[in-house]
């Protein structure tokens, strides 16, 4: 084929949101296919696979992130309605949630504090810079909320987004096996612990355990988001963290 024509097509496509929107969908489908082909093996996490492949494609084609995001933003946008949709599993499992009211409240408080303090404590011990520490504070909270918190306390929102997503991948990959080792058999407890530590990506994994686990993970996302919004500025002030 004529090389000029190819260049023309590339220039045309690279400027339209269609290209990166479709590439993201295709890469995800490929990642999802691999995950299922592997028999649902946790190490073949579709998010991690897709992130790695897309990052490689962008670097190879010299595409800036802003250009990529123009297309991918349509997918990113769906995080909003998906968060609203978490009310559905919550509604379906409400009787069990009511039964476990006290364990939920105590688990949430302890879990949320553990997530924040262990993250900044470990990073501080290993020489993390102040802005990195601040960006780590909301790491277990769902992406859009975490970015808002990071902005308010002086972290870097786009770095927080990446940290949040990798945190979610770690939770999705390791949490189910870890919970088995601890001999936790209650799907409600499993889901809630995964949701507190690993927000939406963990919830996607919890939904594969059972609908009940998914409902409790979804509940944990909402509650942990609310609590961290309140806790983050307090902890930052108490620890005298400044960017």
């Amino acid at each position, binding site marked *: 084929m004529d090389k000029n024509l190819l260049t023309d097509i590339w220039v045309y496509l690279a400027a339209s949101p269609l290209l990166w929107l479709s590439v*993201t969908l295709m890469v*995800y489908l490929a990642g999802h296919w691999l995950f299922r082909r592997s028999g649902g093996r946790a190490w073949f996490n*579709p*998010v991690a696979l*897709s*992130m790695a492949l897309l990052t490689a494609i962008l670097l190879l084609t010299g595409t800036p*992130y802003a250009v990529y*995001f123009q297309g991918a*933003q349509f997918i*990113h946008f769906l*995080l*909003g*309605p*998906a*968060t*609203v*949709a978490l009310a*559905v599993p*919550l*509604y379906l499992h409400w009787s069990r949630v009511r039964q476990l009211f*006290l*364990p*939920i409240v*105590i*688990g949430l408080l*302890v879990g949320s504090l553990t*997530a924040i303090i*262990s993250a900044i404590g*470990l*990073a501080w011990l290993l020489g*993390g*810079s102040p802005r*990195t520490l601040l960006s780590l504070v909301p*790491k277990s909270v769902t992406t859009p909320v975490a970015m*808002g918190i990071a902005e*308010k306390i002086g972290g870097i929102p*786009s770095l927080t*987004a*990446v940290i949040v*997503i*990798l*945190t979610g991948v*770690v939770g*999705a990959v*390791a*949490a189910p096996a*870890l919970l088995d080792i*601890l001999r*936790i058999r*209650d799907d409600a*407890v499993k889901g809630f*612990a995964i949701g507190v*530590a*690993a927000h*939406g*990506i963990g919830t*996607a994994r919890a939904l594969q355990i059972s609908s009940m686990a998914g409902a409790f993970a979804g509940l944990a996302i*909402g509650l942990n*988001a609310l609590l961290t*919004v309140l806790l983050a500025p307090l902890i930052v002030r108490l620890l005298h963290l400044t960017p």
Partner: protein
Amino acid sequence: MIGALAILLGLQLLGEVAVQVSGLPIPGPVVGMVLLFIILRWRESLPDALRATAETLLSHLSLLFIPAGVGIIQHGTRLADEWLALLAAMVLSTLITVVVTALVMQWVIRRQRGAHRHG
């Protein structure tokens, strides 16, 4: 499906407006989730279309995080400089959080059951 999407987006919109008006530090979509939950409890029924749309959206929740995750390419330098601190914070802290949350919940549930049995 379109009706269900309109409900989800409409409630998110209401949530965003409520946050703007009240100045509460809560994200709009979370308010939308609370609103939808209240409506479902109040009506005591879940329309099939809404259930199907919500389940489709949630079964591919992972996909929705990918665009923000690819943002990792903007932070090459910082990751190279502070990879150990970041890696430890992300991996260890996440595992610790899962363990602590699960054990604390389990402990409270067992205590409650014990209290029921003896009380």
